[in-house]
């Protein structure tokens, strides 16, 4: 009898300790709560899709398919952009329909082809979830609501900054061996012959403008982009200029994911007419072909690869095993 009591007591102690060890601790701040929400399918109608289903961490929080699949396998209409390096952005989504990260955060939750959940239902679910009820109270001193849900998600996204690429190491620390000679030549091409710098500049290599790179022809390419928001003819075919940090990990490319590799992207910019012959409203910057040699294209590609944050070095090696 005594032995049984001791055994039961010991088992009880182990159970209590193990439960404590696996207990989901309350997040200490909005960003930690946001991270938990970002990876939790609780915010989709089916309970199967989370933000991270399309914004995959290992691919710099982007997706590997041209368009992502939402609830019930519903196909999206645009390529999932990276959710990283959002802190300095002033427009969100390819058409810029949101102007703050907080606005942006709630839109995919409600989109019927993405997570398909009304914000009211999302808030109700969180309020009736023991963990989230307690976590929101701990972080925001109030129950979950639309405002603090958006705040938590955007706070997490603001932590996803990357500024530790070989390129940064080269320029910031004057570490000449951080990037290859080819990447250095590529940077020079980026700034000169390639004319890339005309649109891709700033800390994340994009501008705040919307540009038409010629991927609208009204026939097979029918996404009018920014014009969906502004209703202006001048905005037909214009899209947000994509940021280039970690771009080697975020294939496929463009708003519709039509290019599978960086080389295809470079080939397109080198001579757009060869790929889309009757584009409408294309930016005049692309009227004259760049005339890059194959070697120059390789240099440009190597420069773009050098913008990959060192935290993704392992992933980059998997995707580009032959690159040093």
């Amino acid at each position, binding site marked *: 009898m005594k032995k049984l009591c001791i055994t039961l007591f010991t088992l009880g102690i182990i159970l209590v300790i193990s439960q404590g060890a696996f207990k989901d601790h309350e997040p200490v701040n909005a960003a930690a709560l946001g991270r938990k929400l970002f990876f939790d399918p609780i915010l989709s109608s089916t309970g199967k899709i989370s933000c991270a289903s399309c914004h995959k961490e290992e691919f710099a929080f982007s997706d590997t398919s041209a368009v992502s699949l939402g609830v019930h396998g519903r196909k999206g209409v645009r390529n999932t952009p990276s959710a990283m390096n959002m802190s*300095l952005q002033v427009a969100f989504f390819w058409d810029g329909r949101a102007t703050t990260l907080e606005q942006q955060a709630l839109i995919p939750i409600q989109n019927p082809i993405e997570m398909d959940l009304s914000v009211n239902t999302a808030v109700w679910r969180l309020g009736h979830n023991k963990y989230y009820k307690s976590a929101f109270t701990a972080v925001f001193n109030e129950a979950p609501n639309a405002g603090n849900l958006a705040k938590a998600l955007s706070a997490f996204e603001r932590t996803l900054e990357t500024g*530790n690429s070989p*390129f*940064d190491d080269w*320029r910031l620390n*004057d570490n000449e061996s951080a990037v290859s000679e080819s990447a250095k030549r590529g940077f020079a091409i980026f*700034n000169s012959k390639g004319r890339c*710098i005309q649109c891709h500049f700033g*800390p994340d290599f994009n501008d705040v403008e919307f540009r038409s790179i010629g991927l609208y022809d009204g026939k097979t390419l029918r996404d009018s982009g920014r014009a969906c928001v502004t209703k202006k003819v001048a905005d037909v075919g214009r899209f947000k200029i994509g940021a280039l940090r970690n771009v080697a990990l975020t294939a496929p490319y463009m708003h519709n994911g039509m290019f599978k590799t960086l080389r295809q992207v470079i080939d397109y910019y080198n001579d757009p007419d060869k790929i889309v012959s009757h584009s409408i409203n294309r930016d005049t910057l692309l009227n004259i072909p760049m005339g890059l040699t194959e070697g120059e294209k390789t240099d440009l590609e190597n420069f773009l690869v050098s913008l990959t944050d060192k935290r993704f070095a392992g992933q980059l090696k998997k995707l580009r095993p032959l690159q040093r």
Partner: protein
Amino acid sequence: MKKLYLFSFLFVVLCTALSFADDANLLIGRWEHSTISHGESFNFLAVFRINGTFDGFINKKEFVSGVYHMKHDTLYISDATCNAQYQGTYKVEFYGLRDSLRFHVIQDTCKGRREGTNGLLFKNVGASR
């Protein structure tokens, strides 16, 4: 007479050396400006190198690079974002023992560069190559 020639020659060499010393590029180094906007802190770093190149960083992220040169207290600066063929000009005012500086626009049609430079106080945070 020979001595006079020799002395004159040495004098010219010395003067030349001194005149170069006067025009030493005081801008070479790392200069930082920190600010807070909408609750977010921003750190601007400018690196001016001996080889006449410069880079600008926001929160350690490179956002501009180009070439520059100094003539007395005037900075001539160009970058591909603003048009590599065009030079903006700024008066550079150094404070203390070159521990900080302020740029004053003389002429620059590039709005972004002008707004990110003119009137801002940068402190010296180290040497550059």
